């Protein structure tokens, strides 16, 4: 009897964990791959570096993962940031133009020298991230101090941002050849270098939110901003911080993305990616109305999104049809997370709690 009770308790604590459902979703997608895609799980070892479909999921999912980390904080406050894709483009443009300023002179000349850069790497990265931070700050001011609805406020930068990115690059695509910069998105140190960036950002954000009071304040504001205000929490500052940090994460994602394709393209860098990031957070179990959040669950959510994309490519879905297929999968995943289905899961191994 006691054993059974213990088992029930353990099952409950597992199913009630925020990581449970995103992990189940991820495993389901992998199960699909295992059954239908031969060789999906093969991992090659080339000169000590690992390659394979699984590694690709992790690597290609790194931009959405980075965005999802920042987005989690914003959504937890009860908001949303639609501008992350545009902020990625802005950060990429700043980085691109600082390495290869030929676009400014309206010349199209292809730099082929992999050691050439206009500005040193730290200036490139620093300036791009600073600009992204300012973009986030702008969103934060609109939402927290001007009291504009988050969706409307961030829509401003979502539409204007690509224009700003075009202005920075003079409307041209900027080739990036500088090899140290290319390492960000393409480098390999046993695992792809971008994975280390994700892990680092995840760790720092976790420390920042859970080893200070910030995480609790964000959740408190997202759950009940009036009670929070009565308790002395400054809602505006908390929100400003969340949006600014989200912009910063989008900046990092922008650097990874443009480094990966060796091009800073104001029109296409991070196009429509904000929706993937929001979905990743939702799959990670954070409510769109704000409240409790888990950063790790959001990152797993991002990997679910990427795994779906990758699997669709692998079974031969054409890229133009991908959004349609992906949306079907997303609907299934979201349904899986609905309260009703969750109730079914919780029902396994545990009789309805006696009240």
């Amino acid at each position: 009897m006691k054993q059974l009770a213990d088992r029930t308790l353990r099952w409950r604590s597992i199913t009630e964990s925020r990581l449970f459902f995103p992990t189940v979703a991820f495993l389901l997608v992998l199960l699909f791959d295992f059954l239908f895609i031969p060789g999906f799980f093969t991992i090659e070892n080339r000169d000590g570096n690992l390659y394979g479909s699984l590694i690709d999921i992790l690597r290609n999912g790194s931009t959405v993962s980075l965005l999802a980390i920042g987005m989690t904080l914003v959504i937890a406050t009860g908001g949303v940031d639609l501008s992350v894709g545009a902020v990625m483009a802005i950060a990429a443009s700043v980085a691109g133009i600082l390495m290869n300023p030929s676009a400014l002179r309206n010349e199209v000349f292809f730099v082929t020298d992999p050691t050439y850069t206009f500005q040193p790497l730290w200036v490139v990265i620093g300036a791009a991230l600073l600009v992204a931070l300012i973009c986030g700050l702008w969103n934060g001011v609109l939402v927290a101090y001007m009291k504009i609805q988050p969706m409307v406020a961030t829509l401003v930068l979502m539409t204007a941002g690509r224009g700003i990115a075009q202005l920075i690059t003079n409307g041209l695509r900027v080739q990036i050849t500088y090899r140290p910069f290319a390492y960000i998105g393409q480098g390999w140190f046993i695992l792809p270098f971008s994975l280390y960036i994700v892990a680092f950002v995840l760790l720092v954000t976790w420390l920042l939110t859970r080893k200070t009071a910030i995480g609790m304040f964000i959740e408190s504001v997202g759950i009940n901003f009036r009670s929070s205000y009565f308790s002395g929490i400054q809602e505006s500052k908390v929100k400003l911080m969340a949006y600014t940090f989200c912009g910063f994460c989008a900046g990092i994602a922008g650097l990874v993305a443009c480094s990966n394709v060796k091009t800073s393209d104001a029109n296409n860098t991070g196009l429509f990616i904000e929706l993937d990031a929001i979905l990743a957070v939702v799959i990670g179990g954070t409510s769109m109305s704000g409240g409790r959040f888990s950063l790790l669950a959001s990152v797993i959510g991002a990997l679910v999104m990427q795994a779906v994309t990758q699997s669709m490519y692998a079974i031969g879905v054409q890229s133009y049809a991908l959004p349609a297929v992906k949306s079907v999968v997303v609907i299934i995943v979201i349904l899986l997370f609905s309260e009703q289905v969750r109730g079914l899961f919780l029902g396994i191994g545990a009789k309805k709690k006696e009240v």
Partner: protein
Amino acid sequence: MSTMNDYILTMEGIFKAFPGVQALDNVDFGLKKGEIHCLVGENGAGKSTLIKVLTGVERPDAGQIILDGVEIHPRSPQHSQTLGISTVYQEINLCTNLSVAENVLIGREPRKFGRIDWSAMNVQAANLLKRLLDIDIDVTQPLDMYTVAIQQMVAIARALDIASTKILILDEPTSSLDANETQQLFKVMRKLRAEGVGIIFITHFMSQVYEISDRITVLRNGKLVGAFETASLPRVELIAKMIGRSLDELDDMSSIKLESSKHIKAEAVLDAQKVGRAGSIKPFDLQLRAGEVVGLAGLLGSGRTETARVLFGVDKPDTGHIEFDGATITDHGPLGSIKRGVALCPEDRKAEGIVDDLTVRENIVLAIQANKGWFSHVGIQEQYEIANRYIEMLNIATPTADQPVKNLSGGNQQKVILARWLATHPQVLILDEPTRGIDVGTKAEIQKLVLELADEGMACLFISSELEEVLRTSHRIAVLREREKVAEFSGEVDEHVIMHTIAGSEL
């Protein structure tokens, strides 16, 4: 004497229970044709539940409702409306961006060739307002062009026009109206009364009860106290019936209170001078001293909560100034107050108190942490220590400190909020209805705790709609009436005098 036939509505033996509370306990109610009948009682008395039963929002557990001699079973607000029972709620549920005419006739627009006949609609709406309510306004203007009173009347016109109304229920329609607007509304009510409509009027303003009503039904704690002719019920008796204290019963001051009154400091910790806020509370003076419990008495809507909000700084005063320890406060606001050592347990526990998804522990440390800022984190070990200390001290019934606070009962949630503020070690503690919706035992515990805290040197402001409780816990009592501080009593307080002051009548 009236015969049964005068009654357009009788409700008999109505019972209604919600989990943990008997909201209506054998309540009878009768409404005559062409009368204005006030339904009064403090919060939780059962007024709104009775109205909900009548309008079909809630089904009674037992009892019968007879309208015009026929037993009815209202299933929904729509259903009760077709039966002839119309309701206008406190919050106007109209579309303020649509025109007056659209609002009046929405869903029943006159049509021509399948399309809305706009000119006919405007004429019809204008006639309706003129005929029913005797008001003459441009019905093509959007509703938000007009005052709240006019909006209220448009809502009434709409309610009256939908069905041939036998009963009109006005649920606190005057709470956001000024004196002129209220008179405008009363004019309409008198006109309808003359036409034979039975009106149930709910208000917290005693002067309005006496100005407009013919009869009064008093509810208390879900039970019927009685129905009375307004003319033969003096104000002070009405108040006594509402709060359940008879005049000759005098409260004996407890020994602990006498004992603690010796330690009251002479100078004020918090000193409000001519502090007021337009539309909220008229300028008042109030001193809170260390070691003293000051009670705020007054009816609901008399400005009790508003006083607390201004003192704590949730609302900024627009006249006067507040001194803390002799220095004038410039940074009003919760965080500033917490830093000074002022705490407020707000009245609305759900909306302003608890953060329901957070755990008991997190809820308790919230204010301390807000005071410390983002980066000087209260360590997890320390959080558990603080939480467990107050769980034990206040007897909070929770399995662990990690339980989400939403799973706790109302009384325990209230204790969690109290713990949040006690943990900040305040010098001034403002308690707004700390015992509402709490069982009797816990109530006594909290009252005792307040006196003990004062004894330890805290300055307390104790707000409650139960006069008995205020009398029992307070060394000094300030009385509010209709958003104004009207009197202050200290020392031996005569309950009789306080009741008259609350009621605003002569002794």
